[in-house]
């Protein structure tokens, strides 16, 4: 999958039942559509450990193919570093009638 980022990291995957892009936290919600609910790991070792925990949810049929992505955090707001991942987190950038924002569900 994606190259291993050197910045702060979060864990992402697609949810099995509906394919939605989701983000990992150790809390009760565990996989959230809202990227702001993701746990941020400041170093690669803790991100790697979190990924191992996240991968348990593959066998549990919750998600498909978890992986780490780099993020920046400014004023508490998480923003994926790569455009592809920002679009996964925030929704299509198209404008107009069909530009339906990703709502947290």
């Amino acid at each position, binding site marked *: 999958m994606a190259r291993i980022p050197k910045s702060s990291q979060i864990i992402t995957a697609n949810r099995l039942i509906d394919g*939605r892009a989701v983000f990992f936290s150790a809390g009760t919600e565990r996989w959230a559509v809202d990227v702001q609910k993701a746990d941020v790991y400041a170093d690669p070792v803790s991100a790697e450990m979190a990924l191992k925990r996240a991968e348990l949810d*593959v066998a549990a*049929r919750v998600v*498909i193919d978890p992986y780490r992505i780099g993020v920046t955090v400014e004023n508490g707001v998480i923003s994926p570093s790569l455009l592809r991942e920002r679009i*996964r987190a925030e929704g299509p950038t198209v404008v107009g*009638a069909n530009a339906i924002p990703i709502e947290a569900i």
Partner: protein
Amino acid sequence: MYVYDDFDHAFVTARVSQFRDQVERRLAGDLTEEQFRPLRLMNGVYLQLHAYMLRIAIPYGTLNATQMRKLAHIGRTYDRGFGHFTTRQNLQFNWPALKDIPDILAELAEVEMHAIQTSGNCVRNVTADHFAGAAADEIADPRVYAEILRQWSSLHPEFSYLPRKFKIAISGAAHDRAAIRLHDIGLKVVRNGAGEIGFEVFIGGGMGRTPFTAWHLREFLAEGDLLAYVEAILRVYNLYGRRDNKYKARIKILMHEAGLPTVKAQVEEEFERIRDGDLKLSEADIGRYKQFFALPDLATRPTGSAEQAQWEKADPVFAAWVATNVHPHKVPGYASVTVSLKPIGGVAGDATSEQMDRVADIADRFASSEIRVSHQQNLILPHVARDDLKAVHDELAAAGLATANAGLVTDMIVCPGLDYCALANARSIPIAQRLSERLGAPERQAEIGPLQIKISGCINACGHHHVGHIGILGVDRKGEEFYQLTLGGAADEHAAVGEIVGPGFSEGEIVGAVETVIDVYLKRRHGPDETFIAAYRRLGEAPFKEALYGGE
């Protein structure tokens, strides 16, 4: 149009049950993703950036009003209220949940639709001229042969695991509106000296990372030999097509590496061996399929329409729309209408459920309930009385579907790009939206005239950028979107792969670069009658390059 028989109904229904079971087993953990992936792909289910994507087959782009209403209903019930019409004349939903897809497929089966072979290394939806069965210049309706090919290729046991996907297109007229020279097999309906119908056969066209226009394989193939000859081609490809590298697995690479004489000899040898076997099509066989595609019962009308002429004088908006979006029909007093899915600043190929319902209603009232999808991502009402054009226009306009831009600069082919697609490297839709806004003023479009811009967000070329008069390819350069410009491509009977004009442009620069190219054309053309592509062929890339990169 084709009507399912009992076998077809049973076949599609059984397939839905099979997939329902597969989804249940996946959700229950009895199938891993690795095991499930090929099964879902065989049913048109991809996993994209945000969600699953379901690609529904619309055979040769033909559907009726009932089917369109079903698509609208699915969009509303299971998705986000819109769908996306594609260059393969199919429909994609961007947000279905896996758990709902068996129900969606069951609903589709009710109206004789499915998603079989919309993915995978098999024969994909056979595409055809979107004015099929209606165009004034047509020799024969290509959908008759497309349907015969569909039946032959559906779950064909020998050709379900080809080296790579396989695409066939058919044109029923000399003017190629189906991009047949950019297909693995392109068929052009022709008449021989004796007046018999047959096909001119092209092979090995394609886009992607290694674009080729097709080789000319055969001057005349008799109508009855269609299946035997196509089977011979597929058999040769299946045997010799490369399986060691997916980027070299299409038949175009076999053609490039083995050469036309070798492949042709093999195909002809196999054809001779099987031509008088089970695949021979009798006149009765073909006649049976022709009945499915018979013209609807169109009332006799005078050739000219006083009603149309009067409204063209009275309403310039209507007149502009007639000039671009109305196409000559084979029956006097009728026309085919292009329903533009390219509103200025909109998303090319998208239609809301409400718009789909509206088109279905208009088709029922004014167009014998028939609808087509064009590979240019528009809809077509094939049989409209010229006397009804004003009413059809006004109804479409009320639904935001009467943009007068068919064939003009804002009628772009645009892939989903990085806004949706897991393969994309750069966004396509927002670039198209900005271009559309920049160039969309009616007088500006009229001044520019016919010009095809095609945009892809990666080298797989779903947006057909190689054959755009102006092509735009999005690439990723160190995490930034960059856009390469190609000029001089064409998808019609003068098919050509465009040339990369020079270094790429940033996301901020690309719209201006396209406008620079257009301005050079407007300055250098011999007059409004010389189209962009004609001027480009005369001038070559030099003046465009000079304007784009001049001082560098």
